[in-house]
């Protein structure tokens, strides 16, 4: 299950962050918002019309675009 990214998850899924393959600016922002490898992440919902997704990392709810979510590889648990 190594090809999974945050973008392929479904609402309600919980996974562990494996790696963030983002450019530096996005990487830093994600780190500051609590995205770190090894952390649990839950996909709460996806917006309609291929809009952004809402995830929960730790105590923070965050929205990000699917293109950016595809840069975060996860392992489903």
């Amino acid at each position: 299950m190594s090809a999974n990214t945050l973008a392929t998850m479904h609402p309600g899924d919980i996974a562990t962050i494996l790696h963030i393959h983002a450019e530096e600016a996005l990487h830093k922002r994600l780190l500051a918002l609590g995205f770190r490898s090894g952390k649990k992440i839950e996909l709460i919902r996806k917006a309609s019309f291929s809009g952004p997704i809402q995830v929960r990392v730790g105590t923070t709810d965050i929205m990000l675009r699917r293109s950016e979510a595809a840069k975060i590889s996860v392992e489903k648990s």
Partner: protein
Amino acid sequence: MKRIALLGMPNTGKSTLFNRMTGGAARVGNWPGITVELLSGKILLGGDMVEIIDLPGIYDLHGFSDDEQVVRHFLHDNVPDLALVILNASQIERQMSLLLQLKQLNMNIVVLLNMADEAKKFGISIDAAKMSELLDMPIFLLSAKYGTGYPEALKAATKALSYPTPGMAEELRSQLEQDEHIETEMAKVLKDAVQIPARLSDNLTEKLDSVMLHPWFGLPIFFGVMYLLFQGIFLFGQPLQGGIAQGFTWLRETALVPLLSGLPQALQGLLLDGIYNGVGTVAAFVPIIVLFFLFMAIIEDSGYLSRAAFLMDALMAKLGLDGRGFVMLLMGFGCNVPALMGTRVMRSRAMRLLTMLVIPLSLCSARLQVFIFFTAALFSAKAAPIVLFSLYLFSFATAILTALIFKHQFKNTEPFVLELPPYRFPTARQMLLRGWLEVRHFLRRATKFIVAGVVLVWLLTNLPFSATPSSPDTFAGIIGSALHPVFQPVGINEQLTIALIFGFIAKEIVIGALAVIYGLSGDALSGAIGQQLDWVQAYSFMLFTLLYTPCLATIATLQSESKTLKFTLLSLGWSLSLAWLLSFAFYQSARALGY
């Protein structure tokens, strides 16, 4: 004077604390090393005046966003005597990284764990004393919104200020890139001093979100909320605006006219129709701005604005904008001025400018008055609504076109990753303070500019004094006929051109100007215009009015918010060109088709 800087991640309550400390008595100012203005206020602390500066929220001291660069440059060039670091207590497990980065700078720091009320509600318990000991920094729990813990925090700040300011070593300032040990230190402090329940218990937010962000109901609810907001602002705002206008007229007729009657005619005109009317124009915006930001405070502080971004992003991303821009654009249909001011929530400057370029194309309520008058004069009762509707369509279409054309010039480089905070309800104090601060900002920034503009137009339409005011013999008339070759191809005659010059001030006065120009009013005026123009000319005039500069207040706001003359001129030039090109295309093709 000693300086205290407020530092923290976005949305941690910095502004709330700042307002509590300064009581809203703040001013914007420039600082060495940075180009944006910062809010600061002076307060008496422990017998000395100190200056408090509200820095923009940052996620990462080494980040690349506009705000993060501003803060870095500020700290580099203006080392504060005390840094008050504000963290959201309920998100302490991720926000501590910023604190540890700041700690490396060797500043004098007092840490405030804000939103203690929320953390408690969520079942997070923090041992501030223990944490203080582990990190070797004074740390306090606080609720900036409700004031709990505030006196203690203030006392700690006063005490810390009495310590000598450690000079920040140059090598510390320049090399700030060792983050690895931050991770381990963070984990240790968290383990020892903080307890977070496995699952957060904010049921209310989850329940609300499952409705508000529902895949099917989310968007209809959003538009419903926007509709209510819009109606609310203008339902309350218009009578207030009318009342202010009446008050101004009353004061003029009962006091100023008799008082000034001894003065020469021309001076009377300049004072009353120039300066006094200018002040009246400014005052007319006050109720709308206050109401707008009262409601905006609810939408923003409640966390719904981020939800709007979530719902609308699929569409707005294609235009290079975000969902918050869409909210401002919609509000622009009431009045462009507060909508432009509201774009401040967007932290990426490029995206904010793009939104500000688009907003002036929204058909605001002042332009609607002109259109209602013209459609009534020239179209049948059956055609009139369709004509109005078509103008709204043009407004939307040109907004989308503008975004598409300029999205590459104003390219947003900041990652679009937003926090969705739990739902909160602002206190009445927060709402009123917001309305008041924004109005004060507008008055300070725009009054001079608007009054000068009104006086200038008065001079143009009254000089030389030998001419009948607003007639073809005045400067305005001369400009009108000089512009004739430009306006003839779009079907706009000289009288209407003079009215357009007036419309530069505000669209509300276009009809009044026409009354002066034609020497007629009410039904007689619409009769005369209906006689003189055919529908093609009238529609062309309306298209032009829709798209060219909305009003002086909008220009003043564009300038005061963007702080770049180039941008203001771009907006002006673009809307004028767009107005001319569209009216030209419409007028010429209608004529070519035989209408």
